């Protein structure tokens, strides 16, 4: 498991390769890369500043990955989240999951992102031509995370 919170960029190709290098049991690697867009809510976005709660961030991400590893049979997970000042086109977040088969790798990657969006202590501030503004949390993010709670209740395992 690799969990990093950093200001610097990351190389998604290198991270994907590292998830299965020398690991012949890995049959599937899924990955997600989140990026800074140049528009939000109809306004141009010049900058995106990521604030976080340093003492809690890594602990929170580790807890989310532990929960994913408890739900699915995973061989390795990498989560990298950038903080600080970013610009459109920049990468924000990487989630990579290695597993024996694709089903678990796809599901765990989506689960980790859904929980990261609703539980990990990051906050985005957008720089627009009209000034800076904090990004408001979306109710839809809570709904997609809640969906996993419901599916775990139905899961006999």
């Amino acid at each position: 498991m690799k969990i990093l919170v950093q200001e610097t960029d990351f190389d998604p190709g290198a991270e994907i390769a590292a998830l299965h290098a020398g690991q012949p049991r890995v049959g599937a690697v899924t990955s997600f890369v989140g990026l800074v867009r140049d528009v939000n809510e109809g306004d141009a976005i010049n900058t995106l500043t990521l604030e976080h709660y340093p003492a809690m961030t890594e602990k929170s991400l580790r807890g989310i990955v532990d929960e994913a590893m408890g739900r699915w049979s995973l061989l390795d997970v990498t989560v990298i989240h950038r903080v600080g000042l970013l610009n459109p086109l920049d990468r924000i977040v990487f989630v990579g999951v290695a597993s024996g088969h694709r089903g678990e790798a796809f599901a765990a990657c989506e689960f980790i992102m859904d929980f990261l969006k609703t539980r990990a202590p990051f906050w985005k501030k957008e720089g627009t031509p009209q000034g800076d503004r904090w990004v408001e949390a979306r109710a839809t993010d809570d709904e997609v995370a809640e969906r996993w709670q419901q599916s775990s209740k139905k899961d006999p395992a």
Partner: protein
Amino acid sequence: MKVKVLYFARLREKFGVESEVLDLPGEHAYVAAIVDMLRKRGDPWAKELGLDAGYRMAVNQTLAGLVTPVQNGDEVAIFPPVTGG
């Protein structure tokens, strides 16, 4: 008992403070007692920590609720809903 309280993002800006140490009576309390103490300061505290304000809390770096217990030396954080990813 003394509890360190941290504020983040929009709430840190609204309150104009990053962190402070609060002195509460007794040796045990719930997060609700801290929120009550802050609301009594009036606005912007009362408004931002109002019943329908939608803020989030953590105790010792774990997400918490109003009924989460706190004790001397704990670190409590109050912040807006998270928006990472």
